[in-house]
């Protein structure tokens, strides 16, 4: 139908991906075994692309709290907090978030995407300026469309370019709000936060940082990049999500700027959608209370990240610029990228395939995200599979003599037995994987 004609280039792209096998957008897991394993097409598969950084999705306390709230308060709030009022849990979670970040106030949203829409789209109004990083997440771009402010992009992670842009606005009235992310979700690179803060202070701008991928992951108590960099007091606004390390769904805005409450009456993505269900709130509260003490999980997460990054780097893959719980293989050939992703899937390893224009500099990315719940055996197997299939596709060099035959032998028959059951889950009896 003609109404779909404008999607032709999307269709073409999708057809290309499909012509190699599976399509990322239509995968369907038959069973979720643990934070790191699922059954896909009847095969036990390692999950290496689910942003489940702390493995919180199967945490016993979180599950129990969620179930209890479900029984006590029902399945949903059936409306927004402006229309239907808040539940105790909403307010309690906001207080706990504010305390966690050492900030004055917090506001919940129904997702992290909505938190960015509702925060950025509302804080910057007509006559104001939004300065956004060139690699910003889609939710930030969409927030800009919702805002009446003028939107200026600066080069990715480039404080000098940001300074130039603020300098040109120096004489203009209107608030200037700079938007950055702590860990950029495609390549896993972090923001040069101290330099960014120096610039925003020099020009009297405000700063909002999206800590989506760093909550629970960075800093001594898991507060994120702000904590790691020791710059808490210089941050005006933080947005974040419960959909990654917190293991459920939901988003938030926290701030030290007095008077945040009024945003509740101005932010359409807060006002005109249903609030988080009580079970989700209870789950998020349980997870959030664990995060400050989850030092061992954070250590394991970074050990796993280092193991994967070093393993892939050593065999010759071109990776993102730094070790991070997001490890991305950069590829320039779309067909080989799709073939690698499919090959890994057939071998029992799930990763993310990211294509331009969603990726920086037009890279085709095989993106993985690591969990504290991964065993080092799972990470070793992931490196082995990437190496074998990467070599078969000519993406990385083959070693001279010990060569391909040894590699093939390793992987051909041992995939399943090498996939050790996840140690984090062995404490608890678990249904066996369907076809494993």
């Amino acid at each position, binding site marked *: 139908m003609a109404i779909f004609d404008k999607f032709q280039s999307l269709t073409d792209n999708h057809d290309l991906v499909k012509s190699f096998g599976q399509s990322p957008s239509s995968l369907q897991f038959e069973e979720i075994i643990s934070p790191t394993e699922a059954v896909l097409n009847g095969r036990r598969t390692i999950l290496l692309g689910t942003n489940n950084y702390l493995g919180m999705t199967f945490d016993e306390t979180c599950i129990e709290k969620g179930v209890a709230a479900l029984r006590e308060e029902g399945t949903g709030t059936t409306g927004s907090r402006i229309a239907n009022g808040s539940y105790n849990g909403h307010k309690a979670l906001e207080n706990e978030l504010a305390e966690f970040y050492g900030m004055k106030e917090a506001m919940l949203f129904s997702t992290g995407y909505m938190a960015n829409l509702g925060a950025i789209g509302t804080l910057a109004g007509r006559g104001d300026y939004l300065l956004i990083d*060139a690699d910003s997440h889609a939710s930030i771009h969409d927030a*800009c469309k919702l805002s009446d402010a*003028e*939107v*200026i*992009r600066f*080069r990715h992670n480039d404080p000098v*370019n940001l300074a*130039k*842009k603020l300098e*040109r*606005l120096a004489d203009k009235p209107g608030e200037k709000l700079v938007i950055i992310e702590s860990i950029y979700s495609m390549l896993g690179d972090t923001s040069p936060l101290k330099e960014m803060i120096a610039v925003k202070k020099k020009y009297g701008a405000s700063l909002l940082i999206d800590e989506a991928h760093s909550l629970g992951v960075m800093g001594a108590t898991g507060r994120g990049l702000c904590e790691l960099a020791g710059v808490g007091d210089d941050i005006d606004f933080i947005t974040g999500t419960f959909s990654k390390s917190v293991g459920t769904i939901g988003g938030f805005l926290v701030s030290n700027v007095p008077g945040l409450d009024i945003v509740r009456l101005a932010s359409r993505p807060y006002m005109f959608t249903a609030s988080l269900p009580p079970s989700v709130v209870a789950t998020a509260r349980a997870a959030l209370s664990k995060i400050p003490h989850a030092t061992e999980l954070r250590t394991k997460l970074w050990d796993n990240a280092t193991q994967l990054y070093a393993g892939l780097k050593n065999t010759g893959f071109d990776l993102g610029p730094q070790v991070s719980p997001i490890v991305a293989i950069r590829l320039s050939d779309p067909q080989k990228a799709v073939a690698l992703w499919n090959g890994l899937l057939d071998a029992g390893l799930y990763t993310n395939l990211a294509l*331009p*224009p969603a990726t*920086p*500099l*037009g890279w085709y990315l095989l993106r993985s995200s690591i969990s504290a719940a991964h065993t080092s055996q799972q990470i070793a197997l992931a490196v082995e599979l990437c190496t074998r299939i990467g070599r078969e596709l000519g993406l990385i060099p083959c070693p001279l003599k010990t060569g391909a035959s040894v590699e093939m032998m390793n992987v051909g028959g041992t995939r399943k037995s090498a996939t050790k059951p996840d140690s984090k889950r062995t404490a608890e009896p678990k249904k066996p994987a369907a076809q494993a």
Partner: protein
Amino acid sequence: MSKPTISEDAIFSDPLYVEILQQLRPHADADTNISPQTSITRDLGMDSLAIMDFIFDLEDAIDISIPMERIAEVQTISDLVAAVHKLQQEA
């Protein structure tokens, strides 16, 4: 975008047009002929990322920031010349 206020002849001697061509070259397909009516989004083999990089280079070269909503209105090179002139007048 309102129609460019510059006539076809005038644009060739406009230093801004010359600068834009210079900044565009490294990003565009090498073998394309560029004229004022060339569409930046369609005719030059540039995707949205290449266009963004070109805009960053142009901004540095002429010391101006081009807001995203202005870029969204631009199709041809002559549109871009007009949009930048307008921004320069407003500054």
